[in-house]
């Protein structure tokens, strides 16, 4: 346990040193602030508090940004150390291979935690303090922050899997980009195309909902856009899926699985790997 803590702290300090933490906080903080301030302008008609209205736009933003940040942090995590030769050295220390993976995971999660809490949280605090929108809807906002972290965890785990599977850093970088495109952009485009091409409406609502569950990014959308009624009202499009009635527990379990399975696979592959 101690080894995991040391490795995690080292990874986090590394994030501070190479300005990753600062960059992520700035990116998330400024975009959230802009969306919060702009988002509070047109609320007159819809009757929703600024915070839960902004959950809709912030969710759409996070679904792009968080996987990107997470993959950038993680694609290099193992393959980079193999290439530099530091992994060879590290494994001669009293550290097990699974501890290396978990240590890095917690370290990277600390970076994401700082980015989400300081960035998104800070933006919300500023909005509440300096506009006349109250803290109404804060539960939906906190829910969004927590699930955003979970989304980040999913893509950190997927990034590790890429990192342990390939032999070169450049391959890992390419694979990470592909992963991001597929999960965040192409999958949804594909679903949309499928619906457009489906003139005879053979795709039932339930099949469509299941298809959305296959992708963790969509699961994340569902979690944020359907769980709270007020958010659902403004979200519009995702309200469709809302009516399919997936429970929060199911959605959360799915996302946690997307973290656990790639992490476990990474450890298993790493464990068998000849150095």
């Amino acid at each position, binding site marked *: 346990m101690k*080894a995991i803590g*040391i*490795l995690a702290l*080292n990874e986090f*300090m*590394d994030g501070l*040193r*190479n300005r990753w933490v600062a960059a992520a906080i700035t990116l998330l903080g400024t975009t959230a602030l802009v969306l919060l301030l702009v988002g509070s302008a047109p609320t007159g008609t819809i009757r929703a508090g600024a915070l839960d209205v902004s959950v809709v736009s912030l969710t759409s933003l996070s679904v792009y940004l968080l996987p990107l940040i997470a993959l950038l942090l993680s694609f290099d995590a193992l393959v980079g150390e193999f290439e*530099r*030769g*530091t992994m*060879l*050295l*590290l*494994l*001669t*220390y*009293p*550290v*097990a291979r699974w501890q290396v993976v978990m240590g890095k995971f917690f370290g990277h999660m600390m970076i994401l935690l700082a980015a989400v809490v300081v960035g998104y949280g800070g933006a919300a605090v500023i909005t509440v303090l300096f506009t006349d929108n109250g803290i109404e809807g804060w539960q939906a906002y906190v829910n969004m922050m927590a699930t955003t972290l979970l989304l980040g965890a999913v893509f950190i785990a997927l990034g590790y899997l890429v990192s342990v599977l390939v032999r070169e850093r450049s391959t890992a970088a390419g694979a990470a980009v592909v992963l991001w495109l597929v999960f965040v952009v192409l999958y949804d485009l594909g679903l949309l195309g499928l619906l457009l091409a489906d003139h005879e409406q053979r795709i039932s609502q339930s099949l469509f909902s299941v298809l959305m569950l296959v992708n963790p990014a969509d699961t994340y959308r569902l979690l944020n856009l359907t769980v709270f009624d007020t958010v659902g009202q403004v979200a519009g499009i995702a309200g469709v899926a809302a009516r399919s009635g997936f429970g929060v527990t199911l959605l959360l379990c799915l996302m946690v699985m997307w973290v656990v399975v790639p992490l476990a696979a990474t450890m298993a592959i790493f464990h068998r790997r*000849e*150095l």
Partner: protein
Amino acid sequence: MAEGVTLDTAITVKGVVKNYGNNTVLRDVDLSVRSGERMVLIGHNGAGKTTLMKLMLGLTHPAAGRVRVLGNNPVTAAAAHRREIGYLPESVAFNSAMKGREMLTFYARLKGVVPAECDSILVQVGLEHAADRRVSTYSKGMRQRLGLAQAMLGRPRLLFLDEPTSGLDPSLRRQFYDLIDTLSLSGTTSLTSSHSLNEVEARADRIAIMKNGSIVACGTLAELSSQTDLPMVVRLRVTTGNTSRVAEQLAPMGEIHRINDHGIELSCLGASKMLLFRQVAGLGDAIEDFDVAPPRLDDIYNHFMKGVSLQ
């Protein structure tokens, strides 16, 4: 403690085979390193030195055979086992954004060593003034010394050094070996791989020569030399006018290379060494001086490397 291992043996390798795919890197390797010994591994590139070290470090496991390090199987050994081992990899690129002290402290924590020990190690490797600079500003020699510093953490009983002096200038090499000698005096066993034969010649208690995945010879310099039948070179300074007479007398002892007015150079086998000495002593005043050069590690190495194709 595993069977067959005495306290005096730091490393035992028996019948070890290792393949990478279809490529056999180690074939039936036997090696035993005694406690406190300075063992040096030499051999051509790709002979299997690094692989053998990785096996001893438990980073990879053998296809056949047995490896015991400090009485443990290095692959399955508990964390405590690894605290007693230091390793300097052949080429390691430390995180260059870190400062020297930060890096060493990180490794110290992992090893369960009090961070205070880092300061004294930094002094020992001569990095105390550069400790608070980023590793990216370090020269090759400083990085190598930082590498040694982390290997020394926690006073390991056993040090693995994979080509520790490659890329260092002569005075740094000297400092490096002096440091290792100091550690050795305090009882640390070391296994060093090297291509610098001249350096290790004087610094090794025993030398193992690897060729195409096997250990072809292992022993002290004298033992290796006697295995090779390489001749020693004897130079005699002879009083003027006596050279032809002396040469005639010594001819049966060995092969005469050079002869001139005041000197003779001949090579003779180790077995007839004493015989030659007696002869020389019998020649009395005719011999002004004599000098014996046993075969160098270079020569021994070349002898064992015959037939290795360049890859």
